[in-house]
């Protein structure tokens, strides 16, 4: 036993030498498109593992691993909305080996200036979800959308959402302005599931929810969606009018995409975009979209997503004062 161990230790330097040489060779390899991908690709999320964004990233990149011939490693860097995640990203080389989530949290964090990255430093590569929000109220509380708007213009409305200062809060403020609410009381909850519970038991008046979040309760006749905040009605809920139809001209959806740092070689960006788009058009991913009432229309490439991200930034500017004032 002991002798075996000794002979093993004698072998150790011999085994280490080629490994060391390999490490040196890898470190000196020029970063170009030819040798992309160079090892596993890191995907940085800005919220907790197991959450909606994490699930999106895992499913969106799943089939791309095979196309690119590498693996995706998913890391969560939470803190300060997207501050920790973007700081981590900024410290990496622009070689396409690090991808990151691009969502409303990313835009808000850039707006706040808690990271050195600006909107010009990132390339929104692909969009994977565009899950529209519905205005949902307790069944029987308001006769129709007009009654809700009337009530909101004259009295106080308790609106539920999640964390203050985050995207759900921004959405609520945008809705307040679009409806012309006299007095909005924003009641934040820790988890999305609590929102629907408190809507059903009457503790709150209204909430913005995705279809998957309210449909069980709507089917049971507990809650009613007044409007979908999208330019057009959803095929999954054709009876629900758009906000534009009922006098709330507002579009809000949960947008999630993937980005890379600007400065990444163009061939690398193209390879990543193509691989991710292909991955997201796989059956498993389309099933994931269908699970929340979405279609392949939620998937978009660099051009469309880049425009949308710019638009998102300017929308947020309009409520920025309300948000930043609370800091």
């Amino acid at each position: 036993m002991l002798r075996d161990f000794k002979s093993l230790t004698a072998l150790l330097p011999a085994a280490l030498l080629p490994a060391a040489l390999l490490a040196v060779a890898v470190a000196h390899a020029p970063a170009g498109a030819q040798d992309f991908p160079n090892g596993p690709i890191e995907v940085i999320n800005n919220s907790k593992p197991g959450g909606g964004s994490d699930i999106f990233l895992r499913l969106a990149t799943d089939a791309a691993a095979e196309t690119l011939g590498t693996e995706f490693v998913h890391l969560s860097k939470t803190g300060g909305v997207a501050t920790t995640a973007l700081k981590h990203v900024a410290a990496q080389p622009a070689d396409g080996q690090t991808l990151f989530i691009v969502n409303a949290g990313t835009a808000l964090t850039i707006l706040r200036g808690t990271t050195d990255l600006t909107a010009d430093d990132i390339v929104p590569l692909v969009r994977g979800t565009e899950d529209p929000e519905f205005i949902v109220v307790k069944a029987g509380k308001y006769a129709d959308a007009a009654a809700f708007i009337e009530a909101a213009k004259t009295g106080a409305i308790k609106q539920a959402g999640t964390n203050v200062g985050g995207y759900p809060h921004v959405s609520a403020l945008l809705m307040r302005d679009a409806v012309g609410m006299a007095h909005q009381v924003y009641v934040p909850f820790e988890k999305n599931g609590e929102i629907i519970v408190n809507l059903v038991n009457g503790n709150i008046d209204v909430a913005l929810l995705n279809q998957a979040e309210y449909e069980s309760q709507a089917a049971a006749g507990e809650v009613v969606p007044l409007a979908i905040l999208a330019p057009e009605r959803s095929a999954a809920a054709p009876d629900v009018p758009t906000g534009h139809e009922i006098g709330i001209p507002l579009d809000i959806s949960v947008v999630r995409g993937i980005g890379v740092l600007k400065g990444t070689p163009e061939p690398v960006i193209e390879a990543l975009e193509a691989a991710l788009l292909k991955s997201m058009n796989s059956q498993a991913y389309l099933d994931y979209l269908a699970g929340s009432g979405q279609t392949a229309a939620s998937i978009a490439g660099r051009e469309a997503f880049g425009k949308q991200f710019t638009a998102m930034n300017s929308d947020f500017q309009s409520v920025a004062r309300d948000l930043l004032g609370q800091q």
Partner: protein
Amino acid sequence: MDTLILVLGFLSDPYHLALIVGGTFVGVLVGALPGLGPVIMIALMLPFVVRMDPVAGIALCGIVYCATTYGGSITAILINTPGTAAAAATTFDGYPLAERGEAGRALGVATFSSAIAGIIGIIVMIIATPLLARLAYQFGPAEYFALAVFGLSMLASISGQSMIKNFIGGAFGVLLATMGTDLTTGVERFTFDQAHLSEGIAVVQMMIGIFAGGELLRQATLTHVKRNIVAEAVARLPSREDFRRIWRTVLRATGIGTFIGILPAEGGTVAAMIAYNEERRWSPNRDQFGKGAIEGVAAPEAANNAATGGTMVPTLALGIPGGGSTAIILTAMLILGLRPGPQLFTEQPDLLAGLFGAMLGANICFLALGMIGARYFSRITLIPTTILWPAVFCLAALGSYSLQQSLFDVGIMLGFAFLGYFMRRHGYAPAPIVMGLILGELIESSLKQSYLIYDGNLFAILQQPIALTFLLLSLAGICGPFIARAAGGWREKQAAEMLRGDDD
């Protein structure tokens, strides 16, 4: 009857049995590793699950969920390191038992309680889901506030240490819970401009620090002490007498765990804490709590495993996930084209039967695995401290790092290791701190939500029947002992009351 046939049909498929055995084995292992828990495990599996047959895929999620929840108890007992947050309360009595050389007994009690409670929880899930799901709607912020106050009302006596020290520990825990971004105002508190702290202190890392790190430092001061642990005693499983002793405990904790599991906002961690509290309140052995009472192991383990069945209730019937794990299971269901709701029970009987059979199978499987394994796992406590504890420290550091690949989290763990050591040295038990931390956050956020909902009139909380009941129970729990002592001793008073009751 039809359900039973479907369940048997599911279990008779060798593929499903292989899923149960494999899923349970991996789940127990992941649960036992500090830092990794059911949420991360199910998230990792998701891309594979969505390609599986729907029934098998959801069943696998259920298996892993049950097994990881149980697995947390193993490291909690053997090396004072809660494998998952829900197993934190298991360390309070589990580790003292192991230290005393009764690791096999503690593991056996944990395994038995976990499996029995898990099975009852699943039976409740399958029979009563359509009925109990409505309970979820009854709980708003006011009710959670009262429930958390009820949980904290045992703070003064939660550990055998002095009441004042328990209060100081509890207050410190509540203070720690205030770190991070305030839910209702968005203001950052005690974050010292560190983005890492903006979401509050990492609870699991902190617990690993207080429990495992603190214990390492304590053991470092005890290397000269000769331990007389007998190998045969270590591996000994609980006696029939032990099982008789914990029977009631398991049932009580199962009730608490199932109930809290059904509530959408809370899960196994709060359930284990409240079950531990209640057991300490009602057990005839309450003086032994914190020193190695088997009831103190049975209660939290029964509660957190019963909660796995409980959290499935609102997930399946209402589409409202009760926790992180069920949120991913719900996503998997939606991807596989399964819509949650009461209709699920009539439209998808094979899915329900599969989930039921799989979770039941997982509980039976880890019962066998745990009972056989206890004899071998328990021998870990025979490893000399000078070898075991440095190894535990590596595991603790790795576990703290792995969750977010963050060295900052390792720093948190180290900081709390020193804190845990000095607090213990000066007679502060970890139980009140952990309780303050877990329930403090719930108390604060639910109180502030109530304030917003009731237009600033907090007395409205007292108008909610469920909330009022819990608050009155808390009041009775706090004042009872004082009134009784004034009347000349708590036990005599109880006896006197019973006699008086007989006369009526």
